[in-house]
């Protein structure tokens, strides 16, 4: 007969058991939400890259032509007003160029395989900082978690596996001594997870209300109806570029007649 079963369980131990169950539920939820957030970030970053490459660069080109037109006008007009308008147009063009051709535009498409998703879930389950036993453990987990996030976004399964192994091979965290200490630690973990969940929700809300997310939602709902909104937008801006080029040519002929 298993002696555990007949063992007397103190009220503190019962309390600890209840709190551990609560913690387990929260940990599971945390993993789900962390995954959701990681996917959302990666999807948005990928969409941002696509948008900047397909449409952003065209806005940058359009702004460049508009700046050129404003500069020509300023050259002829010579007024302070025209000059400052030209300077403003040029600044806008530079800003658009930097945005459209920056690091963000390089983000590749994000389409993690089911295996990668599963692997990342494993990593989160094992190394999430909020499951840390103590501060030292937490620091290790934080570092690994950041690396795991980046590896997931890159679709780098090998890196994820290495991170998982690195954590597993790190020295066992010291278990607490006594029920009271355990209970205190479990309560602290619950507190951390609840806080982290709130952070995640805040960040999801912030991401979802960003311009790029609102745009992505539009593009996706149009895609469901068989429309390629990004292509339509690109076509529209291309037409405006053509019109701006025509205007620039007209203006140039007016100002510098051959």
């Amino acid at each position, binding site marked *: 007969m298993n002696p555990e079963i007949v063992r007397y369980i103190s009220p503190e131990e019962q309390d600890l058991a209840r709190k551990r169950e609560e913690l387990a539920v929260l940990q599971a939820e945390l993993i789900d939400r962390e995954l959701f957030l990681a996917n959302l970030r990666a999807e948005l970053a990928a969409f941002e890259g696509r*948008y900047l490459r397909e*449409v952003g660069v065209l*806005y940058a080109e359009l702004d460049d032509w508009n700046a050129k037109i404003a500069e020509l006008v300023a050259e002829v007009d010579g007024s302070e007003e025209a000059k400052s308008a030209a300077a403003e147009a040029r600044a806008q063009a530079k800003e658009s160029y930097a*945005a459209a051709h920056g690091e963000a535009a390089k983000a590749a498409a994000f389409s993690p395989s089911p295996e990668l998703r599963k692997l990342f879930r494993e990593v989160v389950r094992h190394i999430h900082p909020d499951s840390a036993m103590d501060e030292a453990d937490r620091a290790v987990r934080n570092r690994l978690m950041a690396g795991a996030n980046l590896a997931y976004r890159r679709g780098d399964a090998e890196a994820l596996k290495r991170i998982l192994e690195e954590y597993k091979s790190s020295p066992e965290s010291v278990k607490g001594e006594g029920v009271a200490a355990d209970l205190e630690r479990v309560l602290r973990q619950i507190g951390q997870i609840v806080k982290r969940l709130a952070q995640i929700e805040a960040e999801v809300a912030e991401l979802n209300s960003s*311009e790029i997310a609102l*745009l992505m939602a539009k593009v996706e709902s149009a895609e469901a109806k068989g429309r390629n909104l990004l292509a339509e937008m690109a076509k529209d*801006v291309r037409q405006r570029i053509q019109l701006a080029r025509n205007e620039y040519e007209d203006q140039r002929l007016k100002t510098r007649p051959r």
Partner: protein
Amino acid sequence: MSAGEEQAALVRTQTAALTRTGTKSLAARGRADLRAREEAEEWFKKGLEYHLQQRYDDAFRCYKHGIQVSPNHSGLQLYIGLMYHEGQGVPQDHEQAAVWYRKAAEQGDARGQMFLGYAYDHGEGIPQDYAQAAVWVHKAAKQGYADAQCRLGAIYSSGHGVQQDYEQAAVWYRKAAEQGHAGAQNNLGESCYYGQGVPQDYAQAAVWYRKAAEQGDADAQFSLGFLHHHGWGVSQDFVEATVWWRLAADQGDRGAQYNLGVMYRNGKGVPQDYAQAAVWYRKAAEQGHAWAQNSVGCAYNKGQGVPQDFAQAVIWFRKAAEHGECNAQFNLGESYYYGRGVPQDDEQAEIWYCKAAEQGDADAQLILARMREEGRNECLRQSPTAHGQPARSRPNTFLSERQ
């Protein structure tokens, strides 16, 4: 920095990357442009609704609202051009129409290109320029716009603004025809019928005519009836010929109306019915069909399907004769010669016999010869045979030239 803060900071940098100003402003701009285009689209739809209801003032107002929101919406540009062209909702202004068509055309709108082509073709709002017309219609045709492909075929066929080229004409007719364009199907039928740009082939002509005819194209219905009447490329079938001619005739095709009259007169494909024949002759005659005018005259002369009325006969013979119709000239000569419906007048008779004779009418030549030989030949005039001779018409002949 505590571990929690560190984690939060990491999260912040990752999120900040997605909300950084550069992307934010470009994304915001994209969304604003999308909204503007959607708003313009709403105005466009609303305008089209009014347009269909013929509430042109409201339609034009909507189009104008839309173009203010989204100045390069090609659909709006096109319809604003249309309204200027038609003078609907705005005073007619061909120059403005051409300006707006050009905006749409330069953005690659096929209809805009086609209408700009029309404007160049007719010199409406811009100086007439067949070459430019061909250029713009060609752009629209290349986009697969069937109307433009058919039009381009016609341009190659006529050689306006391009080197005349029947093969190219047939190529473009075929493109549009294969898209189900009835006019192009009829035109391709014509190409096959006459062997222009394609090998002459009545059976192929019938195939294309039939496609167009089934879509209600009156020209094609006429031609298909004609092929069936003659049994060219298809089985000879008077009933089928009559069916197609009736469809075309009901659409006001005067050639088909005349031919249907002929079928009633001769009882081919339909039971003989002079009254029906007269009805259809008259419809065609009133549209200026010379042979039908002569036939109406004949019907009055003989009292076939209408009460006999020589004066009416002369009226219709004269209309046709003045159109140069040889039989009518002969018949009008006869009317003067015998004084039927007009006072007897040898001089007038000779004038009209002469016109017919000049066109090679053997009977007229014979009569003129006798008149010259015998002077006023009472005998001939009073001859019972001559008197009883019916006015001629050529009910078995059909218009072979169409359009």
